Each structure stands twice: as C-alpha cells, then as structure tokens.
C-alpha cells in the first residue's frame, strides 16, 4: 500500500514537471526578459536623436515601458509615469519609453502633448524579442539597481502596486 502511494506521488510529480516544461517550451522567448534575469542591453536614439542606452543608467532603478500612441491603456499610464519621473527621479528612478508605433510623427506629437519628461525611442522587433517578445501592449519592466529584471507587467498596470514595487527597489542598495 505504501509503495502504491509512493508510486502515485512520483507519477504526480512527474506529470507536474512535464507539464511545466511543456508550457515553458511554448512560452515566447523562453527565459528572455524573465524576472531575475539580467536586463538585455540596448542602444537606440531617442526622439531628439540623442543616444539612449540602458547601460548609461547603471545603478538606477529603470522603468522600461513598451507603449504606443494608439494604445488606450498605454495612454492612461503615461501621465502617472511622468509624475513618477518627477517625484521619484531624484531618488534614483529613470523611466524609458519604447514606442511601438510604426511612424515617429505621432510619437513626437504625443511626447509634446503629454509633456513627457523621460527619454523615448522608437522600438524594433529585435529589441522586443530580446525582452521575450512584446505581443500586446503595454508591457512594463522594472529593472533593479543590480541590472536584473525585478518585475514584468503585461497589460495595464496597477499603478499603486507598481509604485510600491519601485519604492522597495529604490530602497535596495
């Protein structure tokens, strides 16, 4: 009887492990852009043509937001992100926006209209894939001072929870 129970437990564990592996094999990008992994480096130009490299914000907490001007949930988040940059920037937070728009013109207009106070670059498929794929918007990553991805938010974010997470990361040495 004991052996039977043990056998059932072993089979159950095997099924759980197999199912987990199967799901992971289907998930896009594998471990790319996963929480606790090093944030993939990138080097782009911002809307003003200035270099925008993740490496230049080493030691800061970085909020990396993939968004687009036509994305309604994204538009709802931007004013709060502007506020985060204002209030938490002096404590070491840096926001970076990666626009997934096809055309830069509306991004420039949006940037002015929403008085965005952090760098924005036009993204590309390679960058998106390096972060595990951005196949829906918005997607937001929080990168800790150690350069590792601390959190990933898909879809509209609970901004209160996000702010709490940012503050805990800012307090970390």
């Amino acid at each position, binding site marked *: 009887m004991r052996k039977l129970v043990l056998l059932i437990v072993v089979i159950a564990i095997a099924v759980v492990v197999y199912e987990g592996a199967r799901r992971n094999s*289907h998930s896009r990008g594998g471990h790319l852009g996963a929480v606790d992994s090093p944030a993939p480096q990138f080097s782009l130009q911002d809307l003003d043509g200035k270099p925008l490299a993740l490496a230049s914000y080493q030691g800061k907490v970085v909020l990396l937001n993939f968004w687009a001007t*036509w994305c309604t949930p994204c538009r709802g988040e931007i004013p709060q992100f502007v506020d985060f940059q204002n209030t938490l920037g002096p404590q070491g937070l840096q926001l970076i926006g990666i626009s*997934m728009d096809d055309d830069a013109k509306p991004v420039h207009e949006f940037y002015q209209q929403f008085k965005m106070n952090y760098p924005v670059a036009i993204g590309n*498929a390679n960058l*998106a894939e390096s972060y595990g794929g*951005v*196949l*829906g*918007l918005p997607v937001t990553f929080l990168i800790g001072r150690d350069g590792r991805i601390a959190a990933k938010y898909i879809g509209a974010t609970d901004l209160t929870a996000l702010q709490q997470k940012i503050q805990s990361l800012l307090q970390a040495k």
Partner: protein
Amino acid sequence: MRSFLLLLLAITLVQAPGIAHTQSSAASDLPPGSSQLINPEDLLSLLQSGQENKPLVLNVGPSILYMQAHIPGAEYIGATAGKQSLERLRTRVKSLPRNQSIVLYCGCCPWSRCPNVRPAYNELHAMGFTNVKVLYIADNFGADWVDKGYPTIKGQ
C-alpha cells in the same frame, strides 16, 4: 421664450439622425460571442484543415508586432486605425469577389480597446464583403495565440 424652445426643438430634431449615426457607429463594436467573430481555436482548425478555400487572413495591427510573430499565411496590412493602412486594405481587397472569406486580426491590445479591428471590419462591410470574420483575441496576440502553442512565423 416659446420661440426659443421651438427653435431648440427643431435643432434637436435636425441633429437627431447625426446623433443616431454616431451611436450606431459605436454600436458597431463586435461583442464577444457575436457571429462576426471567430475564436483562435476555430481559426486554427480551419487553417489546418484540408479545406481548399481557406480564408484570406489579414493582419491589421502594427508592424513591430507582426514582425515578431504572426499567423502563417497572414498578410500584413498595418494598423487600420490609420488612414494609410485603411487605404492599403481597400487596395488589397478591391478586386476580390465580395463573397471572399476574409479573417481580420490584430491582437495589439485587450479586445475592447483594440483601435484597429473595428475600422477594418467596417471598411470591408462598407465595400460589400459578406463573409468577413474578426479573430477574437481577448487579451493580446501573445497570450491568446502564441502562448497557446499555436503556429507563428516572424518577419515580413
């Protein structure tokens, strides 16, 4: 005062068709479960079936998403919230028979917030197409297609 009220009433009546038009435009939303929609699993079955007359699948979302992953065989039109892509859609389908089976999809955003599928659907409807379905993507293409292990290819 009475004249003013009559004038106000007249203006309201004249404006009424316009108001009704705006509301019907908003009501052209495609609610989940409606007959114009097709679910991902049903589209997949259709595409993988041996059926000869498979639908023409058109991607009406942004190019960066299409470049990362799209349904095999789907043609890129672009985000039809914009005029240029709507024009591209018109050009692509104008010579097709009006009973051509067409499936539109985007997947950029949660269903109720997608700015692209409704303009594309409305355009095809206005052009007289009678066999148009929209792929119902509840959350986004990543969650509702890619993460289910359904086939994709990348690039243009």
